[in-house]
């Protein structure tokens, strides 16, 4: 069991308000990702849940129980840190066994649980090594092993993949997702990478300047962003925004079109522009098109189409996939 509820949580450091007012309901067993640009308060929010920071006001509930005043050790949560925070003087076995030792678990049980965790995480051959003899991905798995032996109510991940190289990151992404499917425990995961958020999450919380901008499934966020910030943050490459005359045609202050919803043609279309940079990815090609009076727009086309910089092209948005926003950036429906 591990449902987490935040009720009007507020956090200030000195006079500086980091999280003005956050309310959130995380269901038991969900994989929730906090995503946002750096400095948006996503890590702070996670540390509030963990109990590593005190709330300035508001209530945090675990399984309906108020734990706001409880220390991190008494909340029954486990955390994986960005730096892994392994204990360098202990072997992998001792690292994983540490939470059990602190809970005064007997030897036989400890041994069994450590071996189980090591098997799940493919660490059996490394149990007698020290952390410094392991690679980044292995260290990451030890940190996860240390978290799972306690059978916590929920796992908290604080940007766990940002110290890994790109290839390993993709692997670990899949491993963590599989672990979640296997354990079915609530996981809260903080990242600044919207690709990680989209691929791993059951539900995503988009944060901006300490405010929860939107909370929903990845596809909800992609299809119906609540405002301009979410629309721009979710999706890669990011959404194109047009203002002025182009937007007025659709009775909005700003309109947004995703690069994948723009059709490109050499002969005719709604908007006229000139091709700038061309990025060939093989399966896709991203064209950066300069539009008169609007600026740079990104278009996604199939990889086979050949355009060269300087080509004159026409762009036409898919009329059913145009997002409209009012003056304050809120979505118009």
């Amino acid at each position, binding site marked *: 069991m591990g449902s987490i509820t935040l009720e009007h949580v507020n956090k200030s450091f000195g006079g500086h308000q980091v999280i003005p007012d956050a309310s959130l309901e995380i269901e038991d067993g969900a994989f929730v990702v906090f995503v946002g640009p750096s400095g948006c308060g996503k890590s702070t929010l996670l540390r509030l849940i*963990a109990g*590593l920071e005190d709330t300035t006001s508001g209530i945090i509930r675990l399984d309906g129980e108020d734990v706001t005043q409880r*220390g*991190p*050790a008494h909340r029954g*949560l*486990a*955390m994986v*840190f*960005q*730096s892994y*925070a*392994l*204990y*360098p*003087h*202990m072997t992998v076995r001792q690292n994983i066994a*540490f*939470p059990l030792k*602190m*809970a005064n678990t007997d030897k036989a049980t400890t041994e069994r649980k450590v071996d189980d965790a090591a098997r799940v995480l493919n660490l059996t051959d490394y149990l007698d090594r020290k952390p410094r003899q392991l690679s980044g991905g292995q260290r990451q798995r030890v940190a996860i092993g*240390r978290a799972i032996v*306690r059978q916590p109510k929920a796992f908290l991940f604080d940007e766990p993949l940002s110290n890994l190289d790109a290839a390993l990151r993709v692997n670990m992404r899949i491993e963590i997702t599989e672990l979640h499917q296997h354990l079915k425990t609530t996981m809260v995961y903080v990242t600044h990478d919207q690709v990680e958020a989209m691929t791993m999450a059951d539900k995503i919380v988009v944060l901006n300047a300490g405010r929860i901008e939107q909370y929903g499934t990845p596809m909800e966020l992609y299809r119906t962003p609540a405002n301009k910030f979410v629309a721009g943050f979710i999706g890669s490459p990011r959404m194109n925004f047009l203002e002025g005359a182009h937007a007025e045609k659709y009775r909005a202050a700003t309109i947004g079109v995703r690069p994948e919803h723009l059709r490109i043609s050499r002969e005719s279309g709604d908007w006229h522009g000139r091709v700038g940079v061309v990025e060939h990815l093989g399966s896709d090609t991203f064209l950066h098109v300069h539009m008169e009076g609007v600026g740079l727009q990104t278009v996604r086309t199939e990889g086979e189409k050949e355009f060269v910089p300087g080509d004159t092209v026409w762009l036409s948005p898919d009329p059913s996939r145009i997002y409209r926003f009012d003056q304050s950036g809120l979505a118009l429906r």
Partner: protein
Amino acid sequence: MATRESRTIARIMMAPSVIVLLIWMIVPLALTLWFSFQNYNLLNPVVTFAGWLNYQFFLTDPAFAQSIVNTLLLVGGVLLITVVGGIFLALLLDQPIWGQGIVRILVISPFFIMPPVAALIWKNMLMHPGYGIFARIAEAFGQQPIDWFAQVPLFSIILIVAWQWLPFATLILLTALQSLSEEQKEAAEMDGANAVRRFIYIILPHLARAITVVILIQTIFLLAIFAEVLVTTNGGPGYNSTNLAFLVYRTALLSFDVGGASAGGVIAVILANIVAIFLMRAVGRNLDA
């Protein structure tokens, strides 16, 4: 140092300093060894070969055994106080407090006071049985003041030297403490370790190397403590606070026996090496990466 040529040049460039250092070390050691086999007394102009006589006299001196014991007690006592006290002070100073910078400077200030001055301050201001602060405190509680240098001479010197070396230990341990990552402490907290267990399982192992450095460096200096003994007890009463360094001084400059003092010096070097080997066996493995 990639090519053979650059290695050769490096060797040639380093040679002068290596040679100077070697002479610097070898000449005094050789002279001491030479004198230790001579009948060389400042009151007697005739210098003759003595064989092992100087060593025999020094080792059978009734003060010798006690001075060895005193030296080891002095080193051990000061190490115990400074390491335990240093860890405690470092933990305190690591807390965020108002005026942290000033407090830290105050804590390291005893290290800047030269040993004879520190010893005299302790002797006359604090430990004097008549007008010392400790005597006044004892009187305030209706107790007989302790005559520190008469009743517990060696312990008094241990206290003074520990006071001088506590800042050094604190400083080294504090910097080590500050290099412990915040996330590691938080991880231990999440893992359910309370403050005491965090200290035992996380902080103390992290400090192991710094503690080793403190022990090794302090031992080198503590084996040669001299000024504090000279200005407070003068080695007495009897030989109660005479350590090896002071015994060598007595032999050389009070008995004018340069040969005997040289023999004592050689024995002191041997003792220092025994202690060093013992220490490296005991704590040296902490220094391996």
